């Protein structure tokens, strides 16, 4: 079969359809333009979808979480009866710790509200937080001379009361949750009429460790644990990451071995984080006997996880230093090491710092590997140093999100807001650093 030339093809075509190419093109133009607009709209819709998801996520969490920064309390005047508490103005801290403040508070409210029966009493006391006695204790430890005087303070309410006061109060009674009885609601409305029940800024959320009682649970312990863990991660991963980047970029011979190391680092950057948890468990805990749940162990695992990120960005920073700088330094008689450490490294530093901050931000939000190495333990105490058991903010969020109480849900969102603000600060710093210090050659 002979191949028809283009000319004859067109001629046949025109003869068959009676249309010129030009006609065909013009006829199809409207369709093609419509397709163009459609395609463009799909693109816009995709970007919009992404941005809307972001907005939805933020508003959802912010709307759930902002209430966590407020806590309901009852303005209470109470006399610190020294005879009842067995305390004098000269009592030691230990004596104060063992005094029966809960009893004192119960006696006070029994007198004030006059509950009729034993079950009424129980219902009344349920309105108060179990941390109320602890509040007075703290005040007395700070100032023991308060014994026998009358003090007025914001007494913590139970989380059910807190949730009711913040959210359900306006709803009709039929809709309110069934966690509060009519009698309890009656007492609460009495207090509201007396203008004693109010919300205040929730300082405890920032000063307390974890607790089983939502109104007493705070993120101080988790934040401290996070900071300690990140400190270990930074101290280890920054020097090691930069040293590795310098070696690979400046000193490594171009051979098979170096290539393997490079491929290895690139792959390691994409290994699921949970695998690092397995590594930490099998190697650090079971072979080296590092104790579980500690910031030290968490920091070690996160170091291995962030190292590839830091190495890759540090290498990019070194690569961006122009060869002319190196050549000038060589020309002045500098040795290879002097060129690298005196000239290339300072110039690459802003890029390296940016990469490190981004790596740290990644480590800050990481949860999965820390679950494996015991950082899910319920830790009430605020960790003092890197070998104390502790938890970290993302794990705290994970733990709280599992709790059935509504107040914990609110606190989870509150903790997420704190975590996100940390991340925003870190990433903004990275962006500013990059804008300010990074040079374009």
């Amino acid at each position, binding site marked *: 079969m002979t191949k028809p030339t283009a000319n004859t093809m067109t001629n046949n075509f025109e003869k068959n359809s009676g249309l010129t190419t030009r006609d065909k*093109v013009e006829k199809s133009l409207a369709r*093609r*333009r419509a*397709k*163009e607009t459609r*395609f463009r709209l*799909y*693109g816009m*819709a*995709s*970007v919009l979808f992404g941005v809307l*998801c*972001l907005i939805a*996520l933020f508003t959802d*969490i912010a709307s*759930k979480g902002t209430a966590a920064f407020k806590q309901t309390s009852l303005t209470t005047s109470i006399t610190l009866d020294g005879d009842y508490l067995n305390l004098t103005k000269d009592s030691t801290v230990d004596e104060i710790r063992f005094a029966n403040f809960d009893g004192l508070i119960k006696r006070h409210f029994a007198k004030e509200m006059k509950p009729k029966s034993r079950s009424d009493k129980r219902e009344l006391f349920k309105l108060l937080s179990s941390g109320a006695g602890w509040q007075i204790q703290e005040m007395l430890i700070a100032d023991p001379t308060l014994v026998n005087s009358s003090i007025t303070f914001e007494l913590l309410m139970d989380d059910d009361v807190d949730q009711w006061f913040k959210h359900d109060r306006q709803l009709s009674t039929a809709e309110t949750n069934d966690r509060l009885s009519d009698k309890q609601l009656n007492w609460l409305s009495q207090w509201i009429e007396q203008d004693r029940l109010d919300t205040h800024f929730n300082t405890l959320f920032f000063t307390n460790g974890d607790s089983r009682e939502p109104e007493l649970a705070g993120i101080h312990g988790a934040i401290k644990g996070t900071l300690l863990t990140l400190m270990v991660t930074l101290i280890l991963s920054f020097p*090691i*990451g930069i*040293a*590795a980047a310098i*070696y690979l970029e400046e000193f*490594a011979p171009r051979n098979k071995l170096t290539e393997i*190391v490079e*491929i*290895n*680092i*690139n*792959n*390691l950057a*994409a*290994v*699921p*984080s*949970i*695998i690092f948890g*397995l*590594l930490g*468990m099998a*190697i650090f805990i079971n072979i*080296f*006997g590092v104790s579980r749940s500690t910031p030290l162990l968490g920091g070690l695992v996160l170091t*291995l996880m962030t*190292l590839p990120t830091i190495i890759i960005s540090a290498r990019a920073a070194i690569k961006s230093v122009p060869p002319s700088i190196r050549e000038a330094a060589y020309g002045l008689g500098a040795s290879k*090491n002097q060129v690298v450490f005196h000239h290339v490294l300072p110039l690459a530093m802003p890029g390296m710092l940016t990469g490190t901050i981004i790596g740290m931000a990644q480590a800050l*939000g990481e*949860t*999965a590997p820390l*679950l*494996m190495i015991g950082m*899910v333990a319920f830790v009430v105490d605020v960790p003092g140093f890197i070998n104390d058991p502790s938890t970290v903010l*993302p794990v705290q*969020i*994970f733990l709280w*999100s599992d709790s059935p109480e509504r107040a914990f*849900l609110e606190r989870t969102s509150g903790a*997420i807001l704190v*975590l*996100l603000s940390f*991340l925003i600060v870190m*990433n903004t710093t990275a962006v500013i650093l990059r804008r300010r210090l990074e040079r374009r050659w």
Partner: protein
Amino acid sequence: MNFSSLLIIVLIVLAGAYFLGRNRARAISHQGMRMHSLPNQYGTLMALWTGVPALILLVAWQLLETPIINHLLIAKLPAAMQAAEPAIIELTISKVYNLAASAGINADPSLTPAVEHLIALNERTLLLNSGMALSLCLICLVVTYKRISPNLRARVEMEKIVNALLLASSGVAVLTTIGILASVLLEAWMFFQIVNPLDFLFGTSWSPQVALRADQAGSSGSFGAVPLFAGTVLISLIAMIIAVPIGLMSAIYLSEYASSNVRKYAKPALEVLAGIPTVVYGFFAALTVAPLIRTLGADLGLDVSSESALAAGLVMGIMIIPFVSSLSDDVINAVPQSLRDGSFGLGATKNETIRQVVIPAALPGIVGAIMLAVSRAIGETMIVAMAAGLAANLTANPLDSVTTVTVQIVTLLVGDQEFDSPKTLAAFALGLVLFLTTLILNFVALKIVQKYREQYD
């Protein structure tokens, strides 16, 4: 003296050595001798020789102390105990530690030799450790100090040490990989001694219960991982159905259509999605998206599980959008302008150019990007741990509850567990499968992307 105070002492000596070396070199050169190197190079050399060996010793000691002491303690336990199972020995050892810490109160006389041995060991190792580290520090200090002379090639020697340290640092990444492989392989091997690998890979029933007594009914537990693999695939598939078209279209729009102003704000906004911690996505999926889907399903008359695969997959898809979009953005930008110009010159519209020229040219890179995104989806843990279920259902219905490999690893390993039960080991076997799958995906994807880049460089 504990580890941190020893560390501080060594660091102080190290700083002192620097000044000592520098001053000594200065003094010699003041005598009119011509030194090979600069004074601060002598100082740095001194500091390196003083600090590095002692620091290596300290860290190695810190790492090896516990395993060695444990080994010595086991030898001191009663003979009957030594023959017991590893888990029991472990328990006894920790009992010994507690007894030694509380000093004196001993409920179990058979442990007394071990406790006493531990107390003695603790004293001895402390003395030995600090003594060895400090004397190593000082010996190196003195030896290097004596060596300082005009002929000592301090700069060359110092640079050699520094290079060795740099090399060692880049070795950490390799050691990490070896560590991962070793730990996962070893535990998985132990698991496959108990459970047939074929049953594990192709079995369809997953219920990793381990009996407390050997004669208990259903004591064996079943470890067929197919429902897990299916669940992982289902959730990843849902995620990719969301992420690939949206991510790809976003990348096309941002790189080909959007004005620089839109690009300036939309691109970072999408990247913020990638920076949000996965635990936040998990919370969003479990407490907002899942109930939403459930209500929607109820309105439509569908029976939606409260831990549906759809909710987890949907949110995971949102998380992955920025990965796909920023990777494809890079790839699309790497397509040479000349190809586009040629297509426009032939009269093609922008859309035709993109679909028939740019995308085919960028296809390998896009495939690589998608593979990386898939590997991300498979390895994602927190979203599924919070929003997907635990029940190992073998189903393709996205409204049902499924479980994934990562969820099972977390549930099997969180909390206290004995280390040699098949239940724990199963997690490592799953980890091995996960690691190998993602490794292969990443490896191939990176190779494709690299090849593609070279094509247009």
